[in-house]
């Protein structure tokens, strides 16, 4: 019967389309052999930990509030991020073997941080800012793992995310990544070593763009508006424009920026506020040179208004 042939053709078409989709959304990972020959350095990893702001999401909240002081090293997760896509629940990345990442191989950690892929081959949601971390030197990620391994194990798995359709279809992230997981540097380069160091911190571990850059309708960053300010993903209000063209910090010197990151005080001696408080506390733990590098990079950016 002709109907049967049409149905069979349709079924074949659907199967091919599904296979193509499956192929297009496959996780792209780094193999262990691709890791550089680098001895992970725990002390260097601590710098990356603070620059990367890991504790600001992954430290378990205390009494419903963000962790402070030594509690920042207890990375049991549990913080909830209420977003237009649904509720993300931050996972446990402590050294706990069952509930955390204690059993992960080094390459598992690198793939999570820089390709957004879990050890089981599942895509991570980009609420985990691997699109920024992907631009870090791999050696820095290896150092970070050494530091995380030295932190206390915290028991307790965190519940999965509660997301709306179609965001709940995790495999779809594979397609999103084909456009938005982009390892190329963003700002024009080549001015000085200090600016390059600043670039590594800002475009990589610092993931500053994730808040300070506006996004398109698919949640990807608008690279041509890099650091030019955006809606606050964590609530109301705007995250400032930190390029030399914005009205927020255009009058600040590089020394003013570095001082602000160290102390939390603006040149007018107003204090840092809102979501930036946690960031400034993290950056205050870096060296003065790192903060100067960040400031130099910001002053060298294309001015956008």
């Amino acid at each position: 019967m002709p109907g049967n042939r049409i149905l069979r053709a349709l079924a074949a078409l659907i199967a091919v389309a599904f296979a193509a989709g499956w192929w297009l959304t496959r996780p792209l990972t780094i193999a262990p052999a691709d890791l550089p020959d680098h001895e992970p350095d725990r002390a260097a990893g601590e710098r990356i930990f603070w620059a990367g702001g890991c504790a600001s999401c992954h430290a378990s909240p205390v009494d419903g509030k963000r962790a402070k002081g030594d509690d920042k090293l207890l990375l049991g997760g549990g913080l909830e991020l209420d977003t237009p896509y649904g509720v993300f629940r931050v996972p446990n990345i402590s050294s706990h073997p069952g509930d955390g990442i204690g059993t992960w191989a080094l390459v598992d950690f690198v793939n999570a941080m820089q390709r957004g892929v879990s050890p089981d081959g599942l895509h991570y949601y980009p609420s985990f800012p691997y699109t920024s971390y992907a631009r870090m030197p791999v050696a820095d990620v290896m150092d970070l793992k050494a530091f995380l391994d030295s932190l206390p194990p915290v028991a307790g798995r965190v519940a999965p995310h509660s997301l709306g359709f179609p965001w709940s279809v995790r495999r779809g992230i594979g397609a999103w990544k084909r456009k938005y997981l982009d390892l190329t540097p963003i700002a024009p380069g080549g001015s000085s070593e200090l600016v390059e160091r600043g670039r590594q911190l800002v475009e990589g571990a610092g993931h500053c763009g994730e808040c300070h850059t506006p996004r398109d309708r698919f949640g990807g960053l608008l690279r041509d508006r890099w650091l030019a300010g955006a809606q606050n993903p964590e609530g109301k209000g705007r995250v400032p424009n930190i390029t030399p063209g914005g009205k927020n910090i255009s009058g600040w010197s590089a020394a003013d920026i570095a001082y602000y990151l160290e102390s939390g005080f603006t040149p007018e001696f107003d204090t840092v506020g809102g979501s930036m408080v946690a960031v400034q506390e993290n950056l205050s733990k870096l060296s003065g040179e790192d903060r100067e590098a960040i400031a130099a990079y910001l002053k060298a950016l294309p001015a956008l208004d």
Partner: protein
Amino acid sequence: MSNMKSRSLLVAIAMAFTSPLFAGDDPVHERHELMEGVGDAAKPIGQMLKGERDFDAGVVMASFETFGEASAKFGGLFPPGSETGEGTEAAPAIWEDRDGFEQALATWAEAVDAAIAAQPQTLEATKPVAGEIFKACKGCHDNYRIEDE
């Protein structure tokens, strides 16, 4: 006779309705002004600490005095009913966690008292006592001021 009485009554009623303007009963505005003054007084000290300005013990003490006057008045400028209005940056936590707010105010006042008592005559002597005050500024702002950019 009754004309004058009615006129006095009218004037009295008018004054009753407009008295807030006379009495300066605008806590939102007053506390905002007070904080602006605190910021203006903090700036020269901060510049001295950053090495952008020559140390001057007189300027430092004058700023400490400004902080002291402000901290004495500030807590009283958050009556019920002043939670919103005129672009206030006062966080709801001030009323929801009144004890915490009072604690933050006390921390500020203590830091200022200690600084005034220390009477620092050098930059080195100023650093620790001013540092405690700035810590108190930040500590209170982190919890009790909203960013509304």
